[in-house]
């Protein structure tokens, strides 16, 4: 019997994933990955409740349950990466890093060490012969977060929810009386929680107030709490009074200045070509098409593009493409890989 270690977060998706695997006849072992257990001032990380929920579901499915402690690795590789990127003025994506370094590397390796044949997660995605394919539910598709996973890892991965919609998942979980069936969706990264990125980063990065400068006139028109908190194309939270809205069109980390403009068509916000670095191809060996589709953030619409070397040329201009974020490349239903925007 194929032995599958399924990552169980205590949420409804991974709970149902485990239940489906049991029903499909796999020898299933539930694993909670302990990545972050620290409570920061004013925010309680619900890891203990999540762990208890995951275990409760595993016990009721009659399967073995284990806890893998990746807290140190997660802090060193995911949290630190995120903080470093913000310090550079970039907009990083810790979920992508978590999949690359923790779930599809550490978790996979530890599972194989302990006798697993395959691993599984509750992601909305599909695999086929080591290829990564979009989920049936386009709206929930999570391949954006998975583009840095290797072919070797995908060959050993099952995504039991790949053909389901979120609604179906909730319904099926409720039909099985899983205690997590009605649980609220966890928003973003656990450790950032409800307080938001600004408060979280404030714990780790020393920030200085600085000027907000109107790019066209060069006038200082306001103050900010720290340039790292601003991201390209951002409109809200600038506190610059009435009139037409301002948008962030750039920032200078050295001078700690944030540049804004009332011109919604500012060249800095709208880009048609993207330079990529740290490109990762899921299948490095096979031929890749020149005409592809690109997603520049999770759930963003796919845009036709041409890739030549490290340069993506988009069919249309796209708004707010930011350094540090990922551009993920597709050919039809297949996720080919992607890279980090320079």
């Amino acid at each position, binding site marked *: 019997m194929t032995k599958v270690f399924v990552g169980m977060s205590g949420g409804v998706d991974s709970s149902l994933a485990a239940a489906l695997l049991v029903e499909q006849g796999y020898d299933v072992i539930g694993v909670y990955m302990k990545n972050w257990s620290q409570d920061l001032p004013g925010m309680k990380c619900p890891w203990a409740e999540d762990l*208890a929920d995951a275990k409760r579901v595993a016990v009721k499915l*009659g399967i073995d349950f284990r*806890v893998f402690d990746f807290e140190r690795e997660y802090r060193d590789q995911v949290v630190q990466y995120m903080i470093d990127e913000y310090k550079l003025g970039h907009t990083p994506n810790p979920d992508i890093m978590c999949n690359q370094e923790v779930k599809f590397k550490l978790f996979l390796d530890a599972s194989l060490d302990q006798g697993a044949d395959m691993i599984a997660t509750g992601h909305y995605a599909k695999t086929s012969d080591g290829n990564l394919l979009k989920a049936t539910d386009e709206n929930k598709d999570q391949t954006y977060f998975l583009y840095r996973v290797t072919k070797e890892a995908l060959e050993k991965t099952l995504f039991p929810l790949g053909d389901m919609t979120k609604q179906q998942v909730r319904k099926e979980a409720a039909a099985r009386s899983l205690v997590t069936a009605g649980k609220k969706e966890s928003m973003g990264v656990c450790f950032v929680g409800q307080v938001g990125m600004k408060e979280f980063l404030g714990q780790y990065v020393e920030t200085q107030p600085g000027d907000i400068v109107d790019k066209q006139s060069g006038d200082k028109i306001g103050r900010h709490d720290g340039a790292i908190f601003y991201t390209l194309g951002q409109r809200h939270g600038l506190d610059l009074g009435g009139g037409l809205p301002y948008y962030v069109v750039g920032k200078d980390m050295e001078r700690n200045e944030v540049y804004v403009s009332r011109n919604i068509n500012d060249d800095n916000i709208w880009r048609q070509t993207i330079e990529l670095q740290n490109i990762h191809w899921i299948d490095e060996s096979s031929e890749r098409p020149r005409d592809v589709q690109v997603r520049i953030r999770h759930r963003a619409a796919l845009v036709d593009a041409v890739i030549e070397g490290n340069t993506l040329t988009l069919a249309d201009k796209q708004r707010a493409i930011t350094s540090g974020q990922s551009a993920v490349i597709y050919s039809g239903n297949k996720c080919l890989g992607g890279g980090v925007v320079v």
Partner: protein
Amino acid sequence: MCTVAIQLRVKKCYNTRVNTPDSIYLDYAAAAPVDKRVLEVMQPYFSEEFFNPSSPYAPAVKVRREYEAAKDRLAHTFGAKGDEVVITAGATESINLAFNGIKGDIITSKIEHSAVISAAKHHGGVVFVKPTEAGLISAKSIAESMTPQTELVSVQLANHELGTIQPLREIAAVIKQERETRAESGNKTPILFHSDASQGFGSIDVHIARLGVDMLTLNSGKIYGPKQVGLLWHKPSVKLSPLIFGGGQEAGVRSGTENVAGVIGFAKAAQLATGKLSDTAKLRDLMQTRLLDKFPQAVVSGHKKKRLPNFLHISFPGIDAERVIFLLEDEGVYVATGSACAASRQTKSNVLDAIGMDDSLARGSLRLTLGRGTTSEMVNVAIDKIVAVIESEYMRLEGYVA
């Protein structure tokens, strides 16, 4: 939230199983339902006799008198006077208040409730005495830890995980001896004896003169009274240092408008808690015998004789107790792991650690605590279900040899 049927059957809080047969609650050491008779006497003080006891008009004065009378009745149940009692919001606050005025060193045990351990650590200068394997804090171990600077000794009446009853009178004798030694040698450092009697009050004799303590913490929620009500009794000679400042209620030691309904309920609960408990001990022994017959490898912890009559702490080698709890909840049986606070946090209980239980055995520990009106029928049904669940877990585990 939960509707609590009187007697011991607790209605389900949540939707899915409301209409199934009654559930069996075996975790009275964690919480007890408010007794119907307690609720009844509390009722008028919410919307009718709602007055502030500090107000000057007659109906408020009446409430003040009833409040003071309830404190007296409450204090009488353990041989004290009402004005020696400070009402607090639960036992944790009472413990923190007891520790607050202490300047010198503290001796306590490694198996106290986390409220005592945390308050002691916060205070600093503390020695944690090791218990015996049965969870007993010997008077000798207290005597050996004593220094001329010791100002407070705090030992629980009974252990909250094992049910072991501590020899408070013998410890009190050690403290009396130390006082005499200090008087002879001219050492003016005072020494006080405090006990957290949250577990045990209501099940065994609690009388301040017989216990020989200077301060005593009691809790209403564990004796079928309302939660968030507790008290600190202190000898009139003991000067307490307030934690909460304000209007000067409770003789200036604990400000805040009096919790009249809570104290009326606490007093009633304490008066009701004097019933005989030999039947409870018989049911506990029945549980213990049945589980040990079925699982001879199981280990019962706590003192064989000096144990609260409603406590059974039992450990099953190789078993993960938390799994057992999750399986039993589906059967409508609610029990605790060896330590309620430690569940899911993957931290070992300080009690089991201190009595030298190894980690894997500690992991397989259940605490079963009986309550008022637990019947033999309920115990037998619960044990059938516990046996079935543990057998299924043993079968699941590889390499298990029956």
